[in-house]
């Protein structure tokens, strides 16, 4: 009667991963291949017997690198589990032994044996010189590693962890592994390299010396000299945090509590910083206030004040960051302002408080945690910002740029870069910690799910007019800035030759049609296509990792979940420059050797932008009644099928948000990217920064303008592609009584 064939002794998932593992061991090159595994070149260069492209088994057959052979033996172990029932304790034990030992051995040999033989002196003194060496792991090693990982998680699941769910345990193992490999490992590795001296030995005194450097902590500016980069960054971040919070609040109030008719325009403005490369605002500021800027010239002509370079340094960076980050504060605060329960305010009014008193005594105190949150976000963003300080910093040192110059400048001092990165990281982590653990407990604006039929009161007039004024001024300024950007891209040479021209666009994006097809002759095409490709590859991966993590966090219970959540959100507080430095330190040597490839760019984007995917996912998944998943499970679907058929279709808006966001962020990011680009994989933003450094503003601005429009287009296209889920008009019906 029942054709249900699945029984406890068929293990399709195990078989799948065994096939993957054996393919990795027998067929694919064990080590990284020069041109990438996707180009077939490696098939013609001695495969399968040449060491560089040989699969592990063939390397072993030639009698070399015998430390790889135990992996093969461990891959045999699960075969003995195949005919056992999943409920059999021996089944679980076999898989755990094979997976844990295999994965552990793979990692251990990867770290122990590098390009110069043994990687650690003490291992060498233990076993004697090796006389062989190995390079970064390649496709074969990756497949074997994943096979061992998932064999291990299946063993753990069979022992009953997380309700014995293979998919969930596997997903947890996967996320933990990649976050460890690409967030914790590079950061800890960087921490270690902060102690390394020029002679390659470890020394605490060197660290201490670098850490207390005057260039970081000097207070000379109090007596007319220069202050250290740490103080500059801190002062800047606090100012930016304060100003953006005030402005953001003003915007949020206008949008929710006035009869202002162009609220939609306000909301649209919030999209701008997301699609604007971070330093573009800095460029526009130069066009306005720089030595040959419009306003500078105008003031000079009208008032006879000689033009100065005042905008380079703290003032310029401050203006640029305030413009760039106010919309972020607005986005945060609009939720906070709307979250204050109207009935509280109505209650205050019935207790004879007038409009201003209500606002001052009820609304504002209730918003306080939200305001602190917005401040901390502004603080972190400002600390982490790299583009604006680079463009506008002048002689002012900021932490993020210091890191960059320590690595790329004449000084080339990895340890110093690591030390500065640590200082920067501790600032942002402190803010992140405060946001999560101090504010987390204080929010007054949790939604109860009960209908709150009240209406927010209008702002009192005494307060509304100043707010209107501020908002109006800011909006005008922003519009000016963006007009400048577009206009500037057509000006021959800003402030010197003001004729309009298409020259910059032609230089960047010219195309020649020949008989052989299209010739992309413009100088920007190379980096443009690379950027598109990398962003397009990173976006779905980021969204996938983010959503799976969100699924685990909202839908599953497992021990260590809080640590898991903290770890996945942590990368939000790690500035891009820190990621950049830590990645080149960690990934230019085996076992993971991906510096100079496109992969390192994609990986950095995934982990930079993952927290946003996670948040979008959590927000929408917690709206879905948990019994939807459970009923799917009791109807015989497994967790993976449930995720695919129930959760994903209902999450299309969150997927869209995550896709768009990670795509756009990958296109506009600069801070991590500038460390990771290579001649072959140059990104648009680092190309533009290069133009700026050569004072080629016209081209830089033309390219930036193009990027902004491309991203607008991309956002629109994705919206069309993902579409809307058809769920009828009364979705609420089926999820009442949660």
């Amino acid at each position, binding site marked *: 009667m*029942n*054709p249900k064939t699945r029984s*406890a002794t068929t293990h399709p998932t195990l078989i799948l991963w065994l096939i993957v593992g054996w393919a990795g061991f027998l067929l694919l090159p064990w080590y990284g291949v020069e041109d990438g595994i996707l180009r077939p070149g490696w098939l013609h260069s001695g495969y399968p017997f040449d060491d560089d492209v040989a699969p592990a088994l063939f390397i072993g057959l030639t009698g070399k690198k015998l430390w790889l052979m135990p992996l093969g033996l461990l891959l045999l172990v699960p075969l003995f589990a195949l005919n056992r029932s999943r409920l059999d304790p021996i089944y679980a034990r076999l898989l755990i032994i094979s997976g844990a030992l295999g994965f552990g051995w793979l990692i251990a040999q990867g770290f122990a044996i590098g390009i110069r033989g043994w990687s650690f002196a003490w291992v060498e003194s233990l076993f004697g010189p090796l006389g062989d060496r190995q390079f970064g792991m390649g496709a074969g090693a990756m497949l074997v590693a994943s096979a061992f990982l998932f064999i291990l998680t299946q063993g753990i699941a069979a022992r009953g962890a997380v309700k014995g769910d293979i998919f969930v345990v596997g997903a947890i193992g996967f996320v933990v592994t990649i976050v460890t490999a690409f967030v914790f490992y590079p950061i800890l590795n960087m921490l270690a390299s902060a102690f390394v001296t020029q002679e390659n030995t470890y020394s605490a005194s060197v660290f201490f010396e670098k850490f207390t450097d005057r260039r970081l902590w000097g207070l000379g500016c109090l007596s007319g000299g220069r202050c250290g980069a740490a103080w500059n960054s801190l002062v800047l971040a606090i100012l930016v945090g304060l100003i953006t919070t005030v402005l953001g609040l003003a915007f949020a109030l206008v949008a929710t509590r006035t009869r202002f008719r162009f609220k939609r325009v306000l909301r649209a403005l919030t999209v701008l910083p997301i699609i604007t490369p971070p330093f573009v605002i800095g460029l526009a500021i130069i066009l306005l206030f720089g030595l040959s800027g419009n306003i500078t010239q105008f003031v000079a002509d009208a008032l006879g004040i000689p033009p100065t370079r005042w905008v380079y340094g703290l003032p310029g960076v401050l203006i640029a960051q305030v413009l760039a980050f106010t919309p972020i504060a607005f986005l945060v605060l609009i939720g906070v302002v709307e979250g204050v329960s109207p009935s509280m305010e109505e209650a205050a009014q019935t207790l004879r408080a007038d409009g201003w008193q209500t606002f001052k005594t009820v609304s504002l105190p209730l918003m306080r945690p939200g305001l602190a949150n917005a401040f901390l976000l502004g603080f972190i963003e400002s600390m982490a910002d790299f583009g604006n300080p680079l463009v506008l910093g002048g002689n002012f040192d900021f932490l993020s740029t210091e890191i960059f110059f320590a690595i790329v400048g004449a000084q080339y001092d990895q340890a110093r870069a690591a030390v500065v990165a640590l200082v920067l990281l501790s600032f942002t982590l402190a803010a992140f910690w405060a946001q999560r653990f101090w504010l987390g407990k204080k929010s007054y604006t949790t939604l109860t799910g009960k209908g709150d039929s009240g209406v927010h009161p209008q702002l009192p007039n005494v307060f509304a007019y100043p707010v209107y004024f501020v908002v109006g001024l800011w909006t005008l300024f922003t519009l000016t800035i963006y007009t400048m950007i577009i206009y500037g891209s057509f000006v021959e040479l800003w402030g010197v030759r003001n004729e309009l021209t298409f020259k910059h666009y032609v230089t960047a994006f010219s195309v020649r049609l020949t008989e052989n097809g299209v010739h992309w002759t413009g100088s920007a095409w190379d980096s443009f296509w690379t950027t598109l490709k990398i962003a397009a590859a990173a976006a779905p991966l980021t969204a996938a990792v983010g959503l799976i993590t969100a699924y685990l966090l909202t839908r599953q219970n497992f021990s260590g979940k809080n640590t898991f959540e903290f770890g996945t959100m942590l990368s939000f507080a790690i500035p891009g420059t820190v990621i950049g430095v830590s990645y080149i330190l960690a990934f230019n040597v085996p076992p993971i050797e991906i510096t100079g490839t496109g992969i390192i760019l994609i990986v950095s984007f995934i982990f930079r932008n993952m927290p946003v995917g996670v948040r979008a996912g959590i927000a929408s998944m917690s709206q879905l*009644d948990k019994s939807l998943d459970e009923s799917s*499970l*009791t109807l015989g*679907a*497994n*967790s993976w099928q449930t995720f695919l058929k129930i959760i994903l279709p209902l999450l299309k808006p969150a997927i869209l948000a995550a896709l768009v966001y990670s795509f756009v962020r990958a296109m506009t990011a600069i801070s991590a990217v500038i460390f990771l680009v290579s001649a072959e994989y140059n990104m648009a933003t680092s190309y533009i920064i290069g133009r700026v450094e050569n004072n080629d503003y016209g081209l830089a601005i033309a390219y930036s303008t193009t990027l902004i429009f491309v991203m607008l287009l991309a956002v629109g296209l994705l919206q069309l592609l993902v579409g809307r*889920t058809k769920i009828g008009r009364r979705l609420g019906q089926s999820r009442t009584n949660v």
Partner: protein
Amino acid sequence: MFESNGKAASVSFENVTKIYGTRSEGVRAVDNVSLNIEAGSLVTLLGPSGCGKTTTLRMIAGLEMPTDGIVRIGDADVTKLPATDRDVSMVFQSYALFPHMSVLENASYGLKFSGFEKSEMKERAQAGLNLVGLGDYGDRLPSELSGGQQQRVAVARAIVLEPQVLLFDEPLSNLDAKLRRQVREEIREIQQSLGLTVVYVTHDQEEALAVSDRIIVMNEAVVAQDGTPRDLYEEPANRFVADFIGEANILDCSVMGIAKGMADVEVCGHRFKLPAREHKEGKALLGVRPNRVVIGPAGSQNTISGEIRRVTYVGKHLEFTIGTAAGDIFATSDDVDAKYVAGDEISMTFAKSGPVLLAE
């Protein structure tokens, strides 16, 4: 297509414990529960909220894993088997219809994972919808149905799989009173005609009495009593069950002596005989349903004297609150023409059958 279900299986728990959180500090949601549900019967888990009934149900489904003990479905030990691999389906309190699928897609969802041919899958899903009277609604979205119709889709979706055990988690709590009665009768009818094993969770004792072959009353993570509806109502085992199922006056009494299985019981000077059950001489509790209280004229022999505190006329019967030396007694009388008013002195006895001795 749905003549009878040869697959209906029994469910048994052996010393099952479920602790949320750590073993030492966690909450014991279910504490060392053993129970046995026969194949083809409808058994209700009844109890106040927080008593562990839903956790018990979810452990049958495989949505929760026991901390200790063994769960069996049929002869198989399924303790560690996840929900997806158990041949069990469940109807949720919120129905949990997939809002992005049509009614027919919802009904065929589970069949898709059971390896049926596409045509047979559709046929079976359609048959399931016909069975619940929604044959013509296959193309609609769940949001386009009324609450009662959604509930029936949820039932159809679960029964088309012909599961070994069908679970219901408070399925009627979102329906209005009239519909509740109708749907519960339909559920009972389907269960009997298909011979399904059904485990049904509710906190509504009337619903439990109406549908069940057997009721398992739970309280504070343990089974308080397990029996037929009549057992539970007529012979509650303890104070909790007597109080929870229907209304009962619970009085302190003394067992003076036991002879031939009959106990000689004394309450405030009134002596009478009752089945002793497992009770011994000494202090005990007496449970009396309000309709088993007999009111007579004041001063009669071997009675409890009392005073009427309040009389309420509720149409088909009268309700009395009687003050006695044993405390306030709640009584009902079908004699709506009785002329008692508040303040009347009366005497009170208990009906021959009905009152029971209770454990604490």
